[in-house]
């Protein structure tokens, strides 16, 4: 199959997955919560009005439609203006830039979710505070072998990059390793926050918190491993000048990120299994 056709198929998959399929799943989850856990019975879940939630839902849907339309336009534009045999016409940055734009609605939901938790805390009038008298240890939430694999992958990346630059520390090398190191520091920070930080949702049940912590830490480890792999793939592609392969890798990068983050949330956190009783008016 010519690489250009392969690219179109993978880019279509990126557009569909990140701007249609996963947003639809998230909107289904929001609809399920509103229908089955209305504010009259679960007032603690709605620190502001139901209208606000529905407004956010509409904005999220609208943004994804706009981005989906942009994706289709890009696809048509690439198809019309590019000669299928001329790989040089593909802009390698398109899947990366478009992928970053596709994550904007999700980031908006994250920020608004964080604000919602803050409001829930402000409205929480309970005077009792509870805590488990057990330490939360990293390896209770993630296998040590997985952590070890992520560390090995990172070290292998450094060794690989040094080998490719013939053991010379170039500016590109420093930028690459610096970026991955910063990303890994961020992942470690998120892990520590999940383990030892304050609960974002003041009403969250202990078992839900355990599930969430396990999920968050494992996601960070998988994403760390994937970022290392992606960087090595990028280096190989640049070294051997595989132009169209790079554009395919860039598109796959965002899809894998989405699968490991949004996809895993949808798969592992079935909305029907979440304990919503903690948000009822009479729950303590």
């Amino acid at each position, binding site marked *: 199959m010519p690489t250009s056709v392969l690219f179109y198929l993978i880019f279509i998959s990126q557009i569909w997955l990140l701007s249609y399929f996963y947003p639809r799943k998230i909107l289904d989850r929001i609809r399920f919560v509103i229908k089955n856990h209305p504010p009259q019975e679960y007032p603690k879940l709605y620190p502001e009005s139901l209208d606000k939630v529905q407004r956010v839902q509409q904005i999220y849907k609208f943004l994804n439609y706009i981005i989906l339309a942009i994706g289709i336009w890009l696809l048509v534009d690439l198809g019309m203006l590019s000669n299928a045999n001329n790989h040089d016409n593909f802009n390698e940055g398109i899947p990366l830039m478009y992928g970053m734009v596709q994550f904007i609605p999700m980031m908006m939901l994250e920020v608004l979710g964080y604000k919602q938790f803050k409001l829930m805390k402000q409205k929480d009038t309970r005077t009792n505070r509870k805590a*488990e008298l057990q*330490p939360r240890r990293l390896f209770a939430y993630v296998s040590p072998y997985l952590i070890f694999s992520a560390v090995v992958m990172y070290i292998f990346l450094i060794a690989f990059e040094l080998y490719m630059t013939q053991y010379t520390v170039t500016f590109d090398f420093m930028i690459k390793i610096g970026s991955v190191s910063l990303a890994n520091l961020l992942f470690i920070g998120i892990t520590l926050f999940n383990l030892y930080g304050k609960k974002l949702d003041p009403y969250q049940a202990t078992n839900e918190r355990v599930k969430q912590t396990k999920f968050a830490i494992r996601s960070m480890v998988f994403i760390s491993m994937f970022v290392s792999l992606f960087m090595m793939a990028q280096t190989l592609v640049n070294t051997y000048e595989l132009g169209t392969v790079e554009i395919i890798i860039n598109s796959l990068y965002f899809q894998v990120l989405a699968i490991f983050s949004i996809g895993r949330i949808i798969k592992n956190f079935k909305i029907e299994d979440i304990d919503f009783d903690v948000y009822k008016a009479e729950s303590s």
Partner: protein
Amino acid sequence: MEIIIDIEDPMPLFTQLVEQIKQAVINEQIKPNDALPSIRQLANDLEINSKTVSKAYRLLERDNVIQAKGYRGTFVHPEAKSNCDFDLNNWLATQLEATISTLKQAGATDSEIRIAFTNAMNQYKS
């Protein structure tokens, strides 16, 4: 094992923590050498100041109910259960009452006892 504190209870928070941990030891809900959460973790979970938890842990360590083992963390003392029965404040009150009774029988006045007590406390400070 869950610990519950009431932020509006007149009993100080650190006292609530100390009492509940001691009670958990007595009821064998936590056993000797069991690991306890770090000060930061417990403070964040209860949303109280870490100094409050630190004070509670210090008092429990003084009473040999828990042991701090540096980077390894904090653990229940091997003899925590028997040490929980010993109430330092009760013992202090009993000792002081007995001493004051002896001094009064010897004829010392209240102000003489207070001055002597203050001087004795100052000696320990310096």
